[in-house]
């Protein structure tokens, strides 16, 4: 019963695993660029979760709709798509800014390794 249950929630499971993989990469890797990659994976994990909430079996995407009364057509939840769009843009902004700091730090210190930066500072 449990396994069937999990199978039906495979999308949630996968998105949570992506979130955790990203978080783990972000917190434990010493390389700064790798940390930013982890951040991106973590965020796409959340977006997959959000999009999965909005999906329902047998629905259409609410994009190209005809006017007039709909005869039994059901659509996915448009609010979640809107939220995810906003989230994607925010994620890209954060990535760009983080990478520009990383480039500047590399110019000044010649390393991408957090531990070495720590040593250089003290």
């Amino acid at each position, binding site marked *: 019963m449990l396994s069937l249950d999990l199978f039906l929630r495979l999308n949630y499971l996968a998105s949570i695993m992506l979130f955790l993989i990203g978080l783990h990469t972000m917190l434990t890797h010493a390389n700064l660029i790798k940390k930013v990659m982890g951040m991106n994976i973590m965020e796409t994990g959340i977006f997959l979760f959000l999009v999965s909430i909005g999906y329902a079996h047998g629905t259409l995407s609410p994009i190209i709709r005809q006017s007039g009364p709909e005869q039994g057509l059901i659509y996915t939840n448009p609010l979640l798509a809107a939220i995810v769009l*906003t989230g994607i843009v925010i994620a890209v902004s954060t990535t760009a800014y983080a990478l520009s700091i990383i480039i500047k730090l590399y110019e*000044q210190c010649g390393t991408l390794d957090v531990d070495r930066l720590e040593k250089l500072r003290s």
Partner: protein
Amino acid sequence: MDHLAVLLTVIPLSGAFFVPMFGREGDRGYRVALGTVLLTTACAAALLVITGRGQAISYYVGNWAPPWGIEIRVDAFSAFLSFSFSLVYLAVIAYSARDVSHELNPAALRWYWSLMLLLLAGLLGVSSAADLFNLFVFTEIYSLAACGIISVRDRMDSLEAALKYLLLSAVAAGCILLGISLIYMVTGHLNYAHLATALPAAVATSPRTVLAAVALLATGFGLKSALFPLHMWLPDAHSSALSPASAVLSGIAVKAGIIALFRLFASVLSASPAVVRAMPTFLAVLAVGGMIFGALFAMTQTDLKRMLAYSTVVQVGYIYLAFSVLNPVALTGAILHIVNHALLKGMLFLSAGLIIHRTGKRRIADLQGIGREMPLTMIALTIGAMGMVGIPLTNGFVSKWHMVLGSLEAGQPLAAGVILLSSLFSALYYFPLVIAGWFGNPAAPAPARPEAPPSMLWPVLGLGAVSLILGIVPEPVVNVLGEAAKHLLGQ
């Protein structure tokens, strides 16, 4: 008049957009910033007058009523915070005109003004949000802008601190967004008022999901507001930024997470079953940890700005603890402490900036006898230190007094004891500074022109004057906040 609620955030945003268009040369960026903050302050003052009569403004952006559109809610609580934040901002912007221009190159300087305004817009947006996703968006604006004003300073330690802050903010943002999506999954709402009605039913069907969502939101906002075990980014970030930037970050920006959790609890969670309402107790435990460990770390610091940064960890603990008591008197103290700490910590960082600007000294041990060289600066520093410790007749005393009274009234003498004990601790790291500054013997003879120029000095003294007034005649403010606190707690 209701449009003021949205103008409160739109004015600073427009100012930020104007800087790259019209503020490209000379000190035009400064003028744009100053004008914008003046307008924002006026707007906040008008809102304070309107909401002070006890009516909150609910503004529907784009005329779409709540569950469909975004609601902005300005009550006495957020109007008062917005007004005091803009006042601190006014002083900081006026101060920055001289201090920042020689530290930054023209391009970075231009964006410094813009980022300062974006930070203000983000903070005001957070304090007036009444929609979970809107809250998230403004949280991101202020976090990115806060990292930005740390990293404008082209030095290795600032860059590293900004990157650490940015990555941890991203973790916090991830937790917050996941929390929001869990809540949306079980309720289908984002608006606060509708969430409050939908949440009890959701708790009945899926209690663990709601609990996990609340835990994730608390972790995210706790990280952004430097709640105890999650404070590790703060000392680096706040001590390596430019002094006016530290004043804003330490005085105001850390409060945004507290305000967000405050609002969330008061308008959404307090209507739910007991499991969900357990959040404040959990926060209280962490707050006590922050008050004790923050004070211990502050005592061991040798750098003035780092010491001030650790003191912020302690003060954040006070505010969380008083909030968790859930008593109107303690809550009045907590709100008042948010404002008092903004004024005092702003003033302390700006005075530290004056000393660094004039003498280049950052170490506490080097500050022997600085009061004889720079008496006005030292007076400001002393007012700040006294307020932080909570000596009677200072504004810090008023807020701590209300916190203690409220805790006793709510039957939590332990919380009152911790607040008193932590005040004693703060005396241990603030008094040596004051004593050395006034009575120590300077190592070198005084320089020829000791005090900083008046254009930098008067903003600091202005903040000092406001703090003193708040300390000596607190009644009008306390009365307004008392009503706001009762309203927030639904009494």
